[in-house]
């Protein structure tokens, strides 16, 4: 049944007319994706810079003491805002790190699973050839 479906699939795909200027279209798509890749990379760099700025802001605000130009309430507000922003970005960073670790682990598991399936398939072929 699966074989029949695969053959039908291949037959249908073969019936698809080859688009004209496919090479140019693929180049255009690749260029668009490269542009988005750069944008994603810049987003990450910006996020890192912002978290460093918030960290510095928190550090500086904690080291400040109330003075005639900055009263206690204003300093407290500044510290609170800096702490909130820093924690927000830190949570985002940790979340991103957890996600990357999860994906890396799953990827390794899936790679092993694929190797096992390939071994099973080759063993089956050997067994089929024997009989």
């Amino acid at each position, binding site marked *: 049944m*699966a074989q*029949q*479906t695969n*053959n*039908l*699939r*291949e*037959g*249908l*795909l*073969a*019936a*698809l*007319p080859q*688009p004209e200027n496919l090479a140019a*279209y693929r180049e*255009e*798509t*690749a260029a*668009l*994706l490269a542009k*988005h*890749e750069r944008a*994603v990379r810049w987003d990450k760099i910006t996020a890192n810079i912002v978290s460093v700025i918030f960290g510095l802001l928190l550090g500086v605000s904690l080291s400040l003491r109330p003075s005639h130009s900055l009263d206690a309430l204003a300093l407290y507000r500044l510290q609170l805002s800096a702490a909130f922003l820093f924690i927000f970005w830190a949570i985002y960073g940790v979340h991103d790190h957890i*996600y*990357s670790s999860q*994906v*890396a682990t*799953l*990827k390794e598991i*899936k*790679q092993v*699973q*694929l190797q096992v*399936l*390939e071994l099973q*398939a080759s063993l089956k072929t050997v067994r089929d050839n024997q009989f």
Partner: protein
Amino acid sequence: MESKDRASYEWLALRCQSGEKGAFEDLIAAMERPLLYYAMTLTGNQDTALDVLQEVWIKAFRGIRKLKDPGALRSWLYSITHGIAVDRIRKDYSREQAEKVRYGDFEEAEEPSFAAEDAARVHAALGQIGILHREVLILHFLEDLSLKEIAKVVGCSEGTVKSRIHYAKRQMKQILERVKHGTANE
């Protein structure tokens, strides 16, 4: 779809999610033709289908990290294609025109099947059935997606998908038989 194929797609999704170099190019190479076929089936125009596909890749590239189940990679890509293609159809024509498909009485009859050698005739006959039936049949034939997965892609219930597939297969069988007996133009 065999479990090895399924596992390969899952691995491909995970490679893309981890940002591995070249993974997205591999994804495009693996899914370009089936998605183009699907988009063309929906839009009925190759240029529009190519535009749809370009949008699909950008959306997929931007959103691949949001894909919670890597095993659902193919159905996820098909649902993106469906969404973009339907938007295009809405823009180009009235969707109502496309959805004017009459339902026949759905009976629990024997499910017609199609042999691999029918592929060329099936391809030609697909253009003669309504868009709602055509798209579920494509997902069924091209990717052997489950009813649940197809329902997710087209945004309706599993029961509706089941009836659409059944109705589409019957309609397809009738068209193929008419062609076989040389009465297609009658």
